[in-house]
């Protein structure tokens, strides 16, 4: 019970911090309004999907360093498949890209399970592999995104202050995560994350669960790459800065590195916090380079505080 409260407490604290940041934003920039929300939400989209994917594997007790490269593969395949495709072709392209994401994640997971090499090393090697695949598909930025798909994440729905990209994010994450976390597989993912041996002895098939967790990560990475192509209109074969950012957001969001605890809500709020901090600093016309320092400092201070708190909790 207390653990539940403390867990929700972290998410509530993050929400409060996010609200505070929004207030601060309107103080810095009184014009901040609908268009600001829209661009914030759209810029956050690929980061949020990368973070969601990373969160799932971290909950399962692993880590995936290849997440940004998988996004690049998904992004370029989307751009190539959609180039000149009609309505039906686009739907097929989207389904294809998601399937590619699932397959890439499953390959990562299978490589970890069958080679018995530590996950950090395997995904480090796969980082090069996926980067190479992306470069093979598209040597230079190119391709195209179907215009009506782009409409999905531009503008707003129902209320003027509700950006479409935000709704898109919530729907995608909810459709994947809620059924998953309620299912037997979701429980198994938490189980192998918190204690692999105990999970194995209670009849969880550890290998298959791990592969499934990495496959879900690949699916989220594919969504991230897809939204990247949707918002820029082209496919970019060089991976963006999503690896570091997603690890930072996962840790800030209260998912314990080592596995078994946390959920997707916290990390996604954390992504918004990190993006909003960046935007606020830009609005306050702070040197963009200082922004990097501030981001890094926030991350380090938060994890240090978290570590100290965890130690206090263990002692009492």
């Amino acid at each position, binding site marked *: 019970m207390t653990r539940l409260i403390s867990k929700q407490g972290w998410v509530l604290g993050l929400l409060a911090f996010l609200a505070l940041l929004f207030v601060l934003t309107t103080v810095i920039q009184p014009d901040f309004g609908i268009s600001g929300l829209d661009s914030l939400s759209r810029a956050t989209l690929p980061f949020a999907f990368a973070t969601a994917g990373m969160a799932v594997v971290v909950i399962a007790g692993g880590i995936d360093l290849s997440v940004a490269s998988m996004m690049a593969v998904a992004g370029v395949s989307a751009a190539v498949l959609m180039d000149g495709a009609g309505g039906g072709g686009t739907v097929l392209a989207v389904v294809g890209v998601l399937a590619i994401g699932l397959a890439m994640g499953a390959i990562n997971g299978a490589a970890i399970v069958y080679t018995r090499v530590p996950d950090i090393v395997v995904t*480090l090697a796969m980082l*090069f592999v996926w980067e190479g695949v992306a470069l093979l598909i598209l040597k230079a930025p190119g391709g195209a995104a179907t215009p009506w798909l782009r409409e999905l994440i531009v503008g707003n729905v129902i209320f003027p202050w509700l950006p479409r990209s935000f709704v898109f994010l919530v729907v995608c994450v909810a459709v994947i995560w809620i059924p998953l976390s309620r299912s037997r597989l979701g429980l198994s993912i938490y189980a192998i994350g918190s204690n692999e041996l105990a999970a194995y002895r209670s009849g969880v098939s550890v290998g298959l669960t791990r592969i499934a967790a990495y496959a879900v990560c690949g699916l989220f990475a594919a969504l991230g790459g897809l939204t990247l192509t949707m918002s820029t209109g082209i496919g970019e074969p060089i991976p963006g800065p999503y690896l570091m950012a997603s690890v930072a957001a996962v840790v800030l969001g209260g998912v314990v590195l080592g596995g078994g605890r946390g959920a997707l809500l916290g990390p996604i709020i954390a992504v918004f916090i990190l993006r909003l901090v960046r935007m606020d600093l830009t609005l306050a016309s702070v040197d963009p380079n200082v922004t990097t320092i501030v981001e890094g400092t926030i991350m380090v201070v938060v994890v240090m505080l978290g570590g100290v708190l965890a130690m206090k909790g263990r002692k009492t």
Partner: protein
Amino acid sequence: MTTERETAPMGTRIARFLGDYPLIPLIVLLFALIGVLEFMRPGIFNERWIGNTVKFAIPLAMLAACQTLTMLTGGIDLSAAVAATISAFVMATQVQLVGVPMAIVIGLLPAIAIGLVNGFGVAFCRVHPLIMTLGTGLIGTGCLQVYQRFVIATGSVIPDSLSWLGTGRTWGFPNALVLFVPFAILLIWGQRRTGFGRLLYALGSNETAARISGVRGWQVYLALYALSGLIAGVSGLLYVGLIKAPSLSLVNPLLLPSVAAAVIGGTSIFGGRGGYSGTIVGALILTVLGTLLTLLQMPEGARRILFGLIILAVTTIYIRLTDQR
């Protein structure tokens, strides 16, 4: 025992032998790669080529020393490349202002500072080293970018002594060996024979046991990460002497290969196993592999795929052979 060993099947005996001498398969692999290279481009294997390979392997091997030492305790140092870049850049921009020796000292200070912050976070706040060094790396990059704007007018100079060290050769040997050989001997001797080296293995194998036997973990972590920062700084100085063009992302492309070199060299990422001698061979393997992949007439993408797959394959076989996890 002896009879059992004699009657054991050939495969088991070979595996046992390789498990006892893990360096042997690595050296065999290195020579196999050189053999393939010689087969593809006959005559490439000459004194000049060896010198060049060693020259490019040394900065990688030094950066991989940071990874090896931290991995022995179950950690990792992802800020090493940033620390190296900062040292190189700060040194190059300070030379005209304060002179070469002072510039080198000033350049190494931020690298040590990054290491100390890492050590503080790992030792006192019990932050996972992966996260901690990732964060300090980010901060370091930001600081470097801000610093660059202040010195944009000064321009940068690479001292002659460093380019002598980085690119020069004496009697066919790269001069960098003057720095690297004592460094490697010190490290290999240090990890086996000194108290500090043994504490690293102890903390990596079983932290609780080490703590109960009276090891003050925080002192070791603080010293270890500061040392790692210092080594990163020195390797940055050496690398800028080799490349001769300081930039804001000078050493960053070496970060992931440095982790790979330590892993291929047989250092367990979970701590307590491995050592620097394997890492040196690992760095040589990666450098030769790089040349090999460049010689293959392949698109850049295919080369990266092969690079990743070979790292994975080598590690897998190595872990199977030596039966470590």
